């Protein structure tokens, strides 16, 4: 995994322009040796961000949570001798230096402090933007939530209050990609990164074959009469259709912006990197099985399904 073989990378670690004392900060490092055990017993290699340093294996990467109006620092340290990465705060719209896109700024070689302002409450995520086709697939992403300025349990100021929150980052693995080097394909080799054939379907890091039905990283437990906010993130590359198991929700925001009018829905389609915030008010106890169908990008045929549950007590 040396740096010597990569092409079209832009190593750098400048000082942050106009740096100020932040209202909140996060430390992030990189791990490249993680593993997720799927329901069929197979261990799949994953990469991700740590809470600083190189120790950690959390997949998805640890969430960031801030309040609207805050100045945020993401202190990113990466061992550039080994590999290059960035952090792009997806949906956050900062200056070029802080956007985390390698070829418009730099791939972080050492340490860089991303400085940005959280201007709009909502659901975002952060991910690596170096050889992105591979690095995001390998798991280098985590949730990024901006709460309203008062910290209330609402998707945005003026949105309905919620009692229970779920973050569903729905992703797929093509396991054949998970043995590649960090710089695979960058010098022109055909490594198959045009041809995704997913074989595992995941909700918030949990195999959607069966584990996500009960694992509390995905499955929801709530009481009848409570309000649930689902923050749904399409964290993969494949179009998805999420079916809410017979519940009807109100889609109230997308991509960190309120919708002018909420849209009632019992299912919803999304494409790569979209986010939707959906409120549910179940009144009847029961087990509602949520399915996420992954759709072939040409034919629209269902190529995989992940399942979780909303347990209403």
């Amino acid at each position, binding site marked *: 995994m040396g740096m010597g073989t990569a092409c079209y990378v832009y190593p750098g670690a400048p000082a942050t322009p106009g740096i*100020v004392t932040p209202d909140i900060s996060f430390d992030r490092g990189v791990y490249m040796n993680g593993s997720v055990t799927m329901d069929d017993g197979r261990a799949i290699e994953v990469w991700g961000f740590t809470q600083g340093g190189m120790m950690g294996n959390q997949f998805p990467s640890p969430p960031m949570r801030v309040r609207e109006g805050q100045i945020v620092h993401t202190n990113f340290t990466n061992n550039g001798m080994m590999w290059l990465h960035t952090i792009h705060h997806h949906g956050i719209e900062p*200056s070029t230096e802080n956007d985390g896109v390698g070829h418009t700024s730099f791939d972080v070689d050492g340490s860089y402090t991303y400085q940005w302002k959280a201007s709009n409450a909502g659901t975002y995520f952060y991910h690596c933007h170096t050889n992105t086709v591979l690095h995001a697939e390998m798991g280098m992403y985590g949730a990024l939530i901006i709460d309203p300025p008062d910290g209330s349990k609402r998707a945005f100021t003026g949105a309905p209050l919620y009692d229970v929150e779920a973050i569903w980052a729905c992703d797929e693995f093509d396991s054949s990609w998970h043995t590649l080097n960090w710089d695979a394909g960058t010098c022109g080799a055909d490594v198959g990164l045009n041809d995704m054939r997913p074989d595992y379907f995941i909700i918030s890091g949990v195999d959607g074959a069966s584990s996500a039905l009960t694992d509390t990283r995905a499955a929801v437990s709530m009481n009848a009469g409570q309000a649930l906010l689902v923050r749904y993130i399409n964290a993969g590359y494949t179009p998805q259709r999420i079916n809410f198991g017979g519940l009807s929700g109100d889609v109230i925001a997308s*991509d960190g912006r309120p919708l002018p009018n909420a849209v009632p829905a019992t299912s919803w389609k999304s494409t790569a990197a979209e986010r939707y915030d959906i409120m549910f008010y179940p009144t009847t106890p029961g087990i509602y099985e949520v399915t996420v169908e992954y759709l072939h990008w040409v034919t629209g045929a269902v190529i995989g399904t992940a399942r979780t549950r909303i347990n209403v007590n």
Partner: protein
Amino acid sequence: MKRRTFLQASAAGIAGALTGTAGLLTWVPRAHAATITTAYSITDGYITQPDGVNVYFKGYSDSATGLNVPASSFIVQEGDTVQVTINNTLGTDHSFVIDGVVDSGVIAAGTSKTVSFLASTAGSYLFYDKLNTPYNRAVGLHGAMAVMPTGSANTLYAGSPSFVKQLFWVYNECDPAVNEAVRTNSTPPPLSSYVPRYFTINGLSARPPGAPGYDDPAINSYYDPRTALAGYIGDRTLVRVLSAGLCTHSMHFHANHVELLTRNGSVLADIWLKDVVSLDNNMGSADLIYPFDPPPDAWPPVSTGNFVMHLHNEQTQTSGGGSYQFGAQTSIKFK
């Protein structure tokens, strides 16, 4: 196939007398409807992909000796009568179709045909060859037309939010196996095994800094003036997005959310602000405005910078199975 010409895709996005200079499509409304004439020659040839592979394409070209993929776009206004003459120079039958507007029927090998239609409804339209669907379209026989509302130079439809500039983004993908099957008049592989290897906007893929052709707007979609978003604060830019391809895509805009005005030809009742806009499989479309507002999350605030629009189904950011950053992407420059 009649000829074997090796051409780079042309970046001269000029459709005769109908449009302005490359990149910035200017439009001066007329008080009265007019009859607008234009002409294309159906030609073929090879286009060199970022990895050096030459791939066979067909196009509605500006001349019988060139190859334009996509066709040069054109703009008319509501009420105009549009006459398009298509000269099929090839040894195969083709057609010229705008769904719901005009269908030439078969334009036989080696013949010409003129179609005439009324541009009755403002909006963005893909014209394409509907024969051998979707393969003739996918190998390059497609292009874009805009119909402006009567008397307006800066709206998509009567009463829509206004813009300062407008662009077309015609997306396509390329599975060379399909192009080769069309070249040899044989049966292409089924759609379930369609595996594109190249991804383009207005016929071009991106090149990152340091790559051969990086500075060449005739090769690099970053700098193709038909494609790149470039403006000062307030230069609201309408992008007419039309996919000629087969795949579902997901456009991600950096630095600003966009105002999504239409999807698949339908005006949306509510305008959503999105950083990701879906493009449906099999000729999905959207009209959107990139507002060129100051990037809202910059601290300290900025009004200049270099950003990107790329597809977030990231397998489209490759060329020939690798080469991240050589796919369907363009630049967003705040000047």
